């Protein structure tokens, strides 16, 4: 009897206006207690001081399509620097009339990435598609076949170079990283020691010292008369650097596999290679997919360091434009544009890694 009464009561009497709807939301989320109220007021005041002038600078007083001289007359942002120099920023010194090739290559890469997002597509054909796609991209960039004029890799630059260094870097670093991770857990003392020394040595030094090494020391390592292009040398440095970090990521996955799995594999009579390939690695690599995407993000951001050894990645092409007297002094606009490119790429990747983490959590 009492139960029914309470039920009716809850149905008939609506909660007070101050607890539902917009007012209720504001009360619980912005003005709950005196401390929160003060916090809200201070934050809103700071935003009020910062945001309107920023909007005025970026949108109201700004010029979008003009020359550098016209920009110097105004107070607002000079976005004109972007559309006027877009092709140089994106493609660097790649021959002007051939720039459709890196564009198609990038479109191909993005299409492949989007197709690979869906886990239902993770089957063997996808791996072949990637191999085919990557070689096609290399062919498009390099040329020299099927009537495409040959473009020397020293002319590669801009966004394609950034993407190339990071994607190839991670792809090539992954097998090496897996080997190092297995080596670190090996029972053979020499292998273990060598792996540990390599991993800790690389993780202890900044990437920039490896890039220096690739640009000034590496040529000394080669026999006389052998020259390797500086893009490839930087790529090797990035691969060696990323491999050490991948190794630690993979080691985390290997450690998460219960001991029973190793023992079960052994008791089935599988040798080391087969037990790793069929039992341990498939499970371990699945666990480390989300941190691997994180590693891709940091490899992507790290490629920007090649600026320091004077490779023309997207940051260096932007700086080249900024050293043009016509566009001098508009660094903020140009850097914001480049930051936006990086942000969008990283944002999608990290969102994807979070989604994967949620999806894969129930596995294993």
């Amino acid at each position, binding site marked *: 009897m009492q139960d029914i009464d309470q039920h009716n009561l809850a149905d008939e009497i609506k909660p007070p206006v101050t607890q539902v709807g917009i007012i209720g939301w504001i009360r619980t989320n*912005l003005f709950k207690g005196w401390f929160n109220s003060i916090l809200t007021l201070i934050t809103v005041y700071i935003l009020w001081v910062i945001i309107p002038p920023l909007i005025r600078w970026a949108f109201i007083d700004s010029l979008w399509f003009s020359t550098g001289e016209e920009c110097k007359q105004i107070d607002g942002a000079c976005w004109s620097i972007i559309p006027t120099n877009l092709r140089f920023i994106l493609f660097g010194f790649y021959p002007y009339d051939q720039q459709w090739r890196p564009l198609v290559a990038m479109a191909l890469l993005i299409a492949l990435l989007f197709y690979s997002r869906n886990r239902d597509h993770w089957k063997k054909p996808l791996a072949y598609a990637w191999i085919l796609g990557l070689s096609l991209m290399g062919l498009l960039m390099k040329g020299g076949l099927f009537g495409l004029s040959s473009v020397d890799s020293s002319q590669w630059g801009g966004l394609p170079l950034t993407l190339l260094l990071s994607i190839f870097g991670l792809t090539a670093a992954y097998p090496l990283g897996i080997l190092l991770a297995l080596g670190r857990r090996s029972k*053979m003392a020499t292998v273990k020691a*060598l792996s540990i020394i390599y991993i800790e*040595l690389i993780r202890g030094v900044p990437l920039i*010292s490896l890039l*220096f090494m690739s640009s*000034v020391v590496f040529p*000394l390592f080669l026999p006389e008369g052998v020259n390797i292009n500086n893009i490839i040398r930087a790529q090797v440095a990035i691969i060696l650097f990323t491999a050490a970090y991948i190794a630690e990521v993979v080691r985390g996955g290997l450690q998460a596999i219960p001991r029973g799995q190793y023992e079960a594999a052994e008791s089935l009579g599988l040798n080391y290679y087969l037990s790793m390939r069929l039992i341990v690695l498939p499970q371990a690599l699945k666990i480390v997919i989300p941190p691997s995407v994180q590693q891709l993000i940091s490899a992507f951001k790290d490629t*920007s360091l090649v600026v320091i050894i004077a490779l023309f990645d997207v940051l260096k092409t932007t700086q080249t434009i900024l050293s043009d007297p016509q566009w001098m002094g508009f660094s903020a606009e140009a850097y914001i544009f480049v930051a936006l490119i*990086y942000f969008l790429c990283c944002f999608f990747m990290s969102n994807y890694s979070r989604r994967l983490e949620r999806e894969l959590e129930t596995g294993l």
Partner: protein
Amino acid sequence: MTKESTGPKKTPQTDKIAFWYDPKKRSILYQLGILAMVGLLGYYLISNTLANLERQNIATGFGFLEKESSFEIGESLIPYSAADKYARALMVGVLNTLLVSFIGVVLTVILGTFIGIARLSTNWIVNRLAAVYIEVFQDIPVLLQLFFWYAFFYEILPGPRQALSPLTGVFLSNRGLVFAVPVVHAAHMYMAVAFLAGCIGIYFLRRWARQRQAKTGMAFPVFRVSVVILILLQLLAWMAGGAPTEMSVPELKAFNFQGGLNVSPEFTALLLGLVLYTAAFVAEAVRAGIQSVSKGQREAAMSIGLKPNQLLQLVILPQALRVIIPPLTSQMLSLTKNSSLAVAIGYPDFVSVAGTAINQTGQAIEGVAMIMIVYLFFSLSTSAFMNWYNKKIALVER
């Protein structure tokens, strides 16, 4: 006795097995093979290098450290001129790297903790702002951020005449950051000593308070007493030194500021970029650490009558820190390593000085080796310290 019983069983087996089926012998064989490969590779590289060095007439060895450097360094913590040796120039670089890393780590931990807590705030607007901050600053390469802040100083900020003054005595212009500092006085030395003495005293006070609480159960307000002790000691030392109040205030003379402490645009841009970037990662670590403490812990602590500050100090923090410390260590290390990007914006850190030395002497191998050794030393010592600290606060299991 035992020898006899195991002997006959073992010998026939080892006789039968061919050595490549014996895992132990096989593993020795593998290891020898790998060592031989690594050795051959090393020999190949070294012989090539020696041949190249000889052909290009490049000197080897660290003899150049004793030569005159003949280049100027913009900022230095120790007296330095172009007439000094390379060794001293490199020392200047190491000190500059240490300076920016140390200040950077301290500011990053403070800012990161603050933003991490803001991220957990029930206040919607604060929470959202912290989330936006973390996402934006994590996803932009730190080098780009450094370039941005460098351009911010040189292009956007006005000259010293129209310098911005966000607080009285603090000026921001394209010559860097200038702020008022007290004029050096003997009393400051006393205050430093008093501070050290206060810290030592507080250490013993804490020990005594803990022992007393263990024995009698009576709590002692350690934190409040410590603060009072520190402030009182400082005040006493200041008064004993003659209570100096003179400040060196920056004043605009001719084209630049005179007086006060001037921090160069390069240093400020580097610090700003590193701190804002790394703080985003630290904030994530702090948030994850605090969230890892289950709600039941909080409720249990409240139900046994702990006050909010005791709840934080005795229940939440000890558990959260265990989760926070490892990622925090790696962020500190990454900040130190990223400080090498100073070379891109012209702050004379170690990599930048060593780079100049490489260009002048042509001794690239020694230069890069020194860079690696110095950073390895920083990394290994930081992680050794943090491992020690981590062990200290780790969960003591029964």
